[in-house]
């Protein structure tokens, strides 16, 4: 018996090299890249995408490797989130990355979902992530082929929110993303992979795919906190990643990134002003204020935008406080970020 909403018939292209995958994307930019499929297949079933073919990259062995050197960790785009969550090297070097990986969806998803897929996660909106019947009955929006954004009808852009957990951790950790394209490979800072535009939030050129992530080990302390309605299987109302370094008791590096509030994972600006200071009440209050002022949640979820803003700010304060606490410096990390 056919399920009520059958998956459309699709051609599957199965390259075994990065170059072949890029060639397939160049040949038809509408082809979608399939890795774990935990986001893509749901969107296909809901008719959000209608690619002529899927480029299944899971056969490219090179993309499924984790390599560590003294100063960096290289993670292939196909590395599964459960592996990131369980790898002791990741946990000891990049706590925020482990905590973000384990915060994604539910165990079944994490066994399939990849780090590259989570970085390239489609933006989400309550007016978009519905069935084809729903969108047609309600009326399409900018992201689903219509003329207006139902969240902010007076504006010209799409406000669908980026909701991946891994990206803010990598941004806080100052990771670089390796991208392969027709012109070869290039690297960008993770924050520069994204635009503040819900329809086209990824800054990938035609034919490009994400191949790897390189995370420096230079930032000692990091963490990720995620707020959601239920403790598993839920996108973030807001998620905050922080990476920091202290010299003596004073901050010598501080990066804060937020997810769930904007169309991109947002790197918070102005944290340099806090360098040289101890992580005390005034620094925590300043970090909270920086986040509250910069995030731009809109009514893209069933939960109020102002709540998501308050929670993002509160998480930033809590996480920075935990990272600044003596036990965090001893390498035990904080208790947050469980699935």
């Amino acid at each position, binding site marked *: *018996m056919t399920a009520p909403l059958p998956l459309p018939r699709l051609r599957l292209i199965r390259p075994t090299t990065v170059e072949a995958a890029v060639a397939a994307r160049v040949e038809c930019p509408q082809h979608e890249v399939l890795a774990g499929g935990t986001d893509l297949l749901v969107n296909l079933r809901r008719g959000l995408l209608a690619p002529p073919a899927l480029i299944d990259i899971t056969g490219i062995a090179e993309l499924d490797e984790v390599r560590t050197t003294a100063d960096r960790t290289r993670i292939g785009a196909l590395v599964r989130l459960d592996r990131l969550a369980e790898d002791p090297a990741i946990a000891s070097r990049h706590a925020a990355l482990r905590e973000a990986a384990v915060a994604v969806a539910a165990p079944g998803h994490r066994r399939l979902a990849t780090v590259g897929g989570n970085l390239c996660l489609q933006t989400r909106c309550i007016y978009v992530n519905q*069935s084809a019947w729903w969108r047609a*009955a309600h009326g399409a929006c900018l992201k689903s082929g219509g003329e207006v954004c139902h969240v902010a009808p007076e504006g010209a852009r799409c406000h669908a929110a980026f909701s991946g957990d891994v990206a803010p951790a990598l941004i806080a950790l100052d990771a670089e993303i390796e991208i392969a394209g027709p012109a070869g490979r290039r690297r960008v800072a993770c924050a520069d992979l994204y635009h503040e535009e819900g329809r086209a939030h990824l800054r990938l050129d035609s034919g490009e795919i994400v191949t790897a992530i390189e995370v420096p080990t230079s930032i000692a302390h990091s963490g990720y906190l995620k*707020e959601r309605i239920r403790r598993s299987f839920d996108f973030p109302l807001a998620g905050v990643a922080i990476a920091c370094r202290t010299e003596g008791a004073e901050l010598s590096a501080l990066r804060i990134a937020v997810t769930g509030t904007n169309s991109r994972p947002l790197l918070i600006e102005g944290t340099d002003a806090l360098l040289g200071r101890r992580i005390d009440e005034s620094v925590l209050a300043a970090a909270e204020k920086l986040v509250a002022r910069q995030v731009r949640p809109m009514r893209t979820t*069933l*939960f109020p935008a102002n709540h998501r803003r308050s929670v993002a700010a509160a998480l930033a304060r809590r996480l920075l406080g935990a990272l600044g606490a003596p036990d965090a410096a001893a390498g035990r990390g904080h208790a947050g970020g469980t699935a």
Partner: protein
Amino acid sequence: MPTLAGTRDGVPLIDGIDKVTGRARYTADLDHRGAFVGRMLRSPCSHGQITRLDVERARQLPGVVAVLTGEDFRVPYGVLPIAMNEYPLARGKVRYRGEPVAAVAAIDAETAERALSLIELDVRELPAYYEAAEARAADAVRIHDDKPGNLEREVHHTFGDVAAGFAAADLVREELIDCAEINHAQIEPHAALAEFDPFTNRLTMQSVSQVTFYLHLMLARCLEMDESRIRVIKPFVGGGFGARVEVLNFELVTAMLARAAGGKVAMELSREETFITHRARPQTRIRLKLGLGRDGRLRACECEVVQRGGAYAGYGVITILYAGSLLHGLYDLPAVKYDGYRVYTNTPPCGAMRGHGSVDTRHAFEVLLDRMARELGLDPFEVRRRNLLHAPTRTLNELAIMSYGLAECLDRVESASGWKARRGRLPHGKGLGMACSHYVSGAAKPIHWTGEPHAVVNVKVDWDGSVTAFTGAADIGQGSSTMVAIAVAETLGLPIEQVRVIAADSATTPKDNGAYSSRITFMVGNAAIDAARRLRGMLTEAAARRLDCDPADVECAGGRFHVTGATDRGITFEEAVKAALVDQGTLTVKGTFTCPPEAQGGKHRGGAVGSTMGFSYAAQVVEVSVDEDTGQVTVDRVWVALDCGFAINPLAVRGQIEGAVWMGMGQALMEETRYLNGMPAHASFLEYRMPTSLDSPPIDAQIVESIDPNGPFGAKEASEGALASFAPALVAAIADAVGVDLDELPATPDRILDALVARRRRQRLDAVAGGGR
């Protein structure tokens, strides 16, 4: 008190292994060979006149075998004979987004989908109302022509001298409590399989129903068929909770498609469609006023309830009656005024859901009682103890209370939770709260009055010694077939393995009204015992003939019939059966159960609703942690005690108690349907959030046995009573933890944070006002 030897820890459900091994076949797993695929076109519009519905192009599409519209259904349907105002496919008007307007059957799903896309529907839009207040506005357009003010039903009941009660009270308080609409969210999506034989004009229907008899009745009515040509079979059903206690549009449409196609049609609804079919707990606003003496005694209660009922009647009249009638029956209330308003709106129709009608008013009552006790300096347990009933008694609204174990429930959870030592001594951010609840063991007056017994069970015994119980009762996961097996086995002195149960097939089993209002254990259980006793009598007589003694001297136990006081003078059960079959052949005996008229409620209009043979009672304590930065509430532990009369199967009772607590927790913490201009924005398990295993606390479930005088072995219901006390206990625990009184459900983090912010603002204003003095 019965011993139920060998089952005192309880027995696993007799169909449990089938389920966990995947052998169990649910409706969508049935033999679909040769079946056409049925699909429905749904209204994109909330409210409007259908000006054109052209199905011609769909009909012409190769592979399409049947196309239906509302014009193919001449007769309306509905679960209540007094309120049948719905058609399986909309006729003339659409009243909510997602209402089915046309249906097709085709050779496969793709063709069916394509056919739907070829149907042309034009609707002249009318104003749409998504909130009860909008629909009740003076200038609102009528959703149903015969219902002015868009009121489906008003209820006004007053019992006792309410004014005198409030005058005598030392403390009178009033609160406005809002409870969100929720959904059953049963795991199995809706599905049906219908087969029509054009040669014999017979219809065989298999569906996810909790009420196969009502389905049988409505199929005959809407297809205008002779009842005797219909057979209804209930396969395994993956949960109901009330979602399937009335006949649903897709069931009637699937059957009609099968007849139109002259064959077999399978319909499977998506999760979204299952949500849209709805029939669950309505959004409810409760204005409640209580009067309390300094001694903690309740003096008077005034309660106004407004339910946003959705677009069609369904069970609405019963829901709004339950909301008032079950104010009674838990505590000793000397005066009660109830005003209920069931409102039509342009949202999917609401219906019955676990704790039908009682949950939201019970929530408001317990919340307000808790706050008033606090104001009077009374312990929450103490204020409940001062208002206990004493069975047997009758309430003001003529509900019979035959057994009452609430006092023991209170003692059990107070002690288990360490309430006396811990309440008020937890660190800030942690809190304890408690509340009580109750529910009926089946409605004493059936919806369709026929004069028949409330339940019939047949038990057959044959040459091979096998015992088979035939019941129409629908096991939907609650374990009713296991209960029947235990009741028969216990009465016949047999191990449970020797009893087979055949359930819910109209061709073989006696009619049963179905799985709702927790009626099966009480009614079907008693009928099963009655049948088994009659059989035991026949076997005893046969044994006496063989043993050459008086039947009064024969005992039946342990699989044997023997002479009293001489266990060696006896015969086996199988030998007794062989003896009984001589000259008779296969024996089939019938047992029945009928609720006496005095249990069927008061004579006032609507007085039958809430009447029952026995109420279950529950008390529970909830412990929470509240994160004041994020508004997140964590349920740390739950202690619950349920008086179910007698636990026929303690294992199943514990499962039901835990399920009720968990479902109450979902409503209290996060479950909520949400409509955007009438579009269901919640219609997936991603957006309709239920607690996951990580959100689920340890539940200490205790069974209290008050031994009801009329219950089977003393049993009452066990699956609904513990639900309604969760939410008020949670709200009380939140108040204890962080000092905010929440007036809305669910207690989502945004609502908690808003309440905390509002309290801080109030405190600042109070400080300013105080400083100015």
